[in-house]
C-alpha cells in the first residue's frame, strides 16, 4: 500500500517536471509576447518527432539530439514571431484584439505544423526504447529514462531562471513582461525581445518534446493535449513565474498520476480540466499570481 502510494507520488512528480518545462515555454510566450500559442504542443511534436527520426534513422543519442532540436525550434519560433505575430501586433488596435487574433493565427499554425509533420514522417504511432532499465527508488520502481528527463527538465528550468535573473537580456525580458511600452521607451528593442521570448518558448517545447519521446509513444495528434496541460499549469502557477510553473506542473502531475492510478487514465484530461475550471472561477490569477 505504501509502495503504491510512493509509486503514485513519485510518478506524479516525474510527470510534473516535464509539464513544468512545457509551461515555462508557454508562460514566456503568453506572459511576455501576449501570444496564447495554441500551437505550443506542435513544437513538442516537432521536437519529439525529430528526435525519434535522428535516433532511429541516424543513430543519434536522444540526449545529444537536444543540441539540435533546441536551436532548431528556437529559430522557427523566432522567425514565426518576427514575420507573423509582429505584423499582427502592429496592425491590431488594442492588446485585447491582438490576443484574440494571435490566438486564432496560432490555431492556423497548429494545423500547418501538425500536417507538415504528417507529410514528412507519416501518421503512424512511433516509439523507441532508450535507457529504459528499471531503477528502484525506496521500493517504487521507475524507468531510468523517466528520471533522466526529469533531471534535464529541472536543469533547463533552473538555467533559464538564472538567465532571466542574472543577465542583461534576462532583465530586458523581465522589463518587457512588466510593461512592454515603457520598456520600449527605456531603449529596449521590443521587437527583438518579444521574438526572443517566443523563440525561447518554442525551444522549451522542442526540448520537452525531445525528452518526452524517450518515454511515450508519439502520434501526430499528441500536441493539443500538452498545449491544454501547459495552459492549465500556467493558470495554476500564475503567469510569467518560473517557480509558479514548477509548482503548478508538480500539482498537475500529481493529479494526473492519482487519477490514472485510482480511476482511469482516460479521465486524466477531464480531471485537469475540472481543476482548471475550479481554479479559473475561484482564483483566476493563479496560486502565486500577483493580482
Amino acid at each position: 500500500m505504501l509502495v503504491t502510494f510512493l509509486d503514485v507520488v513519485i510518478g506524479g512528480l516525474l510527470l510534473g517536471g516535464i509539464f513544468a518545462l512545457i509551461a515555462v515555454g508557454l508562460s514566456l510566450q503568453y506572459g511576455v509576447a501576449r501570444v496564447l500559442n495554441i500551437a505550443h504542443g506542435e513544437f513538442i511534436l516537432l521536437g519529439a518527432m525529430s528526435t525519434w527520426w535522428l535516433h532511429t534513422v541516424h543513430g543519434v543519442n536522444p540526449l545529444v539530439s537536444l543540441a539540435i532540436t533546441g536551436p532548431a525550434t528556437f529559430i522557427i519560433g523566432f522567425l514565426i514571431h518576427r514575420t507573423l505575430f509582429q505584423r499582427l501586433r502592429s496592425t491590431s488596435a488594442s492588446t485585447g484584439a491582438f490576443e484574440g487574433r494571435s490566438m486564432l493565427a496560432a490555431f492556423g499554425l497548429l494545423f500547418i505544423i501538425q500536417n507538415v509533420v504528417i507529410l514528412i514522417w507519416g501518421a503512424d504511432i512511433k516509439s523507441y526504447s532508450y535507457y529504459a532499465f528499471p531503477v528502484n527508488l525506496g521500493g517504487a520502481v521507475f524507468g531510468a529514462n523517466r528520471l533522466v528527463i526529469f533531471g534535464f527538465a529541472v536543469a533547463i528550468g533552473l538555467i533559464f531562471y538564472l538567465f532571466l535573473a542574472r543577465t542583461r537580456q534576462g532583465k530586458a525580458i523581465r522589463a518587457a513582461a512588466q510593461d512592454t511600452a515603457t520598456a520600449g521607451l527605456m531603449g529596449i528593442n521590443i521587437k527583438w525581445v518579444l521574438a526572443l521570448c517566443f523563440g525561447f518558448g518554442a525551444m522549451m517545447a522542442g526540448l520537452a518534446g525531445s525528452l518526452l519521446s524517450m518515454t511515450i509513444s508519439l502520434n501526430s495528434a499528441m500536441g493539443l493535449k500538452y498545449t491544454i496541460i501547459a495552459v492549465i499549469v500556467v493558470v495554476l502557477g500564475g503567469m510569467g513565474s518560473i517557480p509558479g510553473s514548477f509548482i503548478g506542473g508538480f500539482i498537475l502531475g500529481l493529479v494526473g498520476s492519482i487519477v490514472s492510478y485510482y480511476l482511469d487514465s482516460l479521465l486524466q484530461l477531464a480531471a485537469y480540466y475540472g481543476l482548471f475550471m475550479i481554479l479559473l472561477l475561484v482564483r483566476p490569477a493563479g496560486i502565486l499570481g500577483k493580482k
Partner: protein
Amino acid sequence: MNSIPFISKRALVPGFIILILLILLAAAPSYSSAYFVILMGDVFMYIILTVSWTIFSGPTGYISLATAAFFGIGVYASAVAGNEFPLLVVIGLGGLASFGIALLVGFLTLRLKGIYFAIFTFGLVTLIETFLRWWELNISHTIGRVVVYVDNTTVYYVMFIILVVLMLTAFIIRHSRFGLALQSIGEHEEAAAHIGINVTVVKTIAFAISAFFMGAAGAVMATRWTYIEPSIAFNPLYSFIPVLMAIFGGMGQLYGPVIGATIFTYLKEKLITEIPELYMVIFGVVMVIAILYLPDGLVGIVQKLWTRIRGGKRAHT
C-alpha cells in the same frame, strides 16, 4: 416585425433578392442533382454554425470555441432520442439540450475575460468528449451509436428551415435593444454595466441562443452520418471552422458569415476530394492569411472598394 424601423425602401432590393434566393433554394431538390442536394446540406450546416457563432461572438468579441461541444451535444441527442421521436422533436431536443448546457456554462464562465473564455470553451469540447468516451467504455459498454437514417432531401429541407429561422433570429437580434446591448458589451463592458445592462444575463442568453442552433444542426447532421462516436461528434474542427468562415466572410454584416461559409464549404469539399493530404495545411494557411490580411473579411474589402467607387460618401453604412 412592423415595429422594426429598418424595413424601409432601401431594404426593398435586398429583400427582393433574398426572396428569389429562398424560392430557388426551396425548389432546388426538384431540379438539381443529388450531389448538389448533399453539398447544400453541408453548406447550410456550416452557415448555421457560422451565423450562430457570430450572433454571440460577433458583437461581444468573446471568442467562443465551444461550437463543437454544442454541435456534438445535438449529434448525441439525435443518436439517443432518434429511435423514439420524430425528426423535428429530436431537433428540438438537441437544440434545447445545447441551450440548457450553454446557459449553465455561460453563467459560470462568462465572467472570464477574453482569452481565458476561449480556452475554457475549448476545454469544454475535450472535457465532454473524454467523459463520454469513458462513459461508453466503462458504464454503458457501448462504443459508438447508430443513428436513424434520414434521406438527403429531408436533411436538405430541415437544414434549410433551421437556417431561415436562424437568419430571422439573427436579424431581429441585430436590430433590437438586445442586440444593441450585446454590441455595447463588446465595445466597453464596464460602461455597458454602468448604463444598466445586466451584462451576465445578456451574454448568457445570447450564448445559449447561439448554442440552440448549433445543437439543432448537430441533431440533423447525425442522421446523415448514421454512425457516430465521441471523436466524430466532438471533432474540434467544428469549433474552428465556423470562426474561420466568419472571419473570412466578415462579421460587419449579417450576410458576411453566410458568404464566408458558402465559399469555404465549397472550397473544403473540393480540397478534400482533390488533395486530401494537403487539405489541413491549406486550411491552416488560409486561416493565418485571413487573420493577417482580412480583418474585416471579404465583405470589408467589398465595402472598401464600394466606398472608393462612390467617392467615400457612404463610408459608415
